[in-house]
């Protein structure tokens, strides 16, 4: 198995199980992501991808199994817990307020307050500081975003995706989970997002990429984990397999070859 130079697990899932009533959405999922690694999470509809993402981002709590972050078992019972252990999720709808500008979205509910203790207690915003941080965050991604005070609804889909990624990274996330980041994007914009994913992984961030798009996975990911009927059935280095192999794993026509 190929490993990156930073051979250290950022996040590790051990036999995660989750059921809803009688439905076993996740039966047994185990894999890990090293620092700076991009892992694709593949699987057919209903294979359990969304449930897994929700377990990692704190929307669901697993019934069984451990999640380890940087080698320590963590308990993630809310979105806030996930954030506190360094996991940021970029949801499909991006969770942004269209009327707000980029800076306001980057700092939504994590505003920088004024230094004066009284004003800070009131929640007085330090808009200058937020704008400076926001410029830095955008520069760090070399993204082609016009300006930090542009309103979100004036941006293209790819640019919005970039802002959502910038927000995740800006909060010092060690692990970024992305749910179908290119699903709604054209070819060129998808390429831009891929580029961004490479930039943040080169900065040591572990990325879990949920995608339907095989081409996207092959281009961006180091490894691919395949879910089939709630189980992780394959964990392969992308360089070692063909797209056809991956499809066979997803459809269950073939169990792990590697």
């Amino acid at each position: 198995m190929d490993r990156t130079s930073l051979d250290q697990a950022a996040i590790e899932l051990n036999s995660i199980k989750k059921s809803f009533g009688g439905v076993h959405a996740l039966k047994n999922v185990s894999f890990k992501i090293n620092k700076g690694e991009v892992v694709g999470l593949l699987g057919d509809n209903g294979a359990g991808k969304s449930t897994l993402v929700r377990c990692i981002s704190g929307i669901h709590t697993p019934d069984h199994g451990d999640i380890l972050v940087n080698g320590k078992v963590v308990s993630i019972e809310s979105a806030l817990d996930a954030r506190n252990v360094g996991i940021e999720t970029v949801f499909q709808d991006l969770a942004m307020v269209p009327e707000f500008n980029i800076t306001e979205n980057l700092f939504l509910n994590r505003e920088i307050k004024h230094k004066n203790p009284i004003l800070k207690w009131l929640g007085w915003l330090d808009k200058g500081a937020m704008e400076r941080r926001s410029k830095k965050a955008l520069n760090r991604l070399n993204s082609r975003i016009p300006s930090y005070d542009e309103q979100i609804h004036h941006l293209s889909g790819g640019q919005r995706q970039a802002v959502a990624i910038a927000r995740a990274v800006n909060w010092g996330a060690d692990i970024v989970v992305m749910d179908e980041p290119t699903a709604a994007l054209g070819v060129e914009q998808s390429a831009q997002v891929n580029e961004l994913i490479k930039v943040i992984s080169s900065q040591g961030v572990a990325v879990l990429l949920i995608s339907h798009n095989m081409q996207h996975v092959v281009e961006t990911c180091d490894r691919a984990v395949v879910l089939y009927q709630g189980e992780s059935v394959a964990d392969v280095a992308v360089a070692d397999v063909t797209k056809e192999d991956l499809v066979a794993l997803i459809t269950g026509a073939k169990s792990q070859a590697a």
Partner: protein
Amino acid sequence: MSTDSASIALLKQFAFKREAFIYYIFILVLVIFAVFLHDTAFLTVSNFMNIIRQMAPITVMAVGLTFALSVGHIDLSIGSVVALSALVGALLLQYTGIPMAVAGALLIGGVIGLINGVLIERMQVSSLLITLGTMGIVTGIARQLTNLESVPIINQDFTFMFGAGDILGIPILLIWTVLIGGIGYIVMQKLAFGRHLLAVGGSPKAALAMGIKVTRIRMYSLVISSVAAALAGLLYAGRLHGARYTLGEADLLTVIAAVAIGGTSLFGGRACIVGAILGSWLMGMINNGLILSGFSTNEQMIARGVILIIAVAIGVKELKNG
């Protein structure tokens, strides 16, 4: 770029925004009346001071309603809260001092706002229906409270503080307007709370995903609008030296029209406090101009309705254009 051309660019940007509309219509109406009523007292400082004093309760309610609208709620109960708070304040003044009377009246407002908020969140029903219901209940209580009798206020300190007084020649009602408008502006524009209100109004899903306590924020917004209405009740009581169940009865339409024309979205996510203040003054100016032109109360009511519809039409058109 020099600072001059930068500010000109900013000004240009603003000139085409929805928020700027109120300035144009304000000036337009002002000019029209000034021309048609050139032989009356319309265009005098004292007339405008009068308008501002008269509209002070409306202005305060408009600032409060802006908070409810910012999260996407409407609060129809504000008119009824005005009457109840004024009556409660006036009754309490017969037994206790000003602090207790004022606290009691504002508390009534806060409690009604909280009830509105809790019912909306618990039942997951639109604020329109819940506040329509509380409007009926509160109106009924206000009528019952004194058997339709008015309650006079003889406490001169109270009428000074909440109506007739002036400090260094500045009417106290103008001071109240500036104070409440200023607080509203700061909270909405400068504090994190204001960002959260607008985030909840603009995209509840995003707000929730970012960990904002959406339910709580929505409830606060209704408490604020209701407390502001209670304060408006005290301002009426102070100016009129007494309270009556009819206070605030006809204000709902005026307040909604004022806020809507001022640039606040009726669907949440955009709030404009300065616009709400100017909007309320615009409504006052129109009333005043129509009276001076010899129109009746009925015709003023028609004018208010027309303005609300114009404001809504602009808002909806903008919504469609994205």
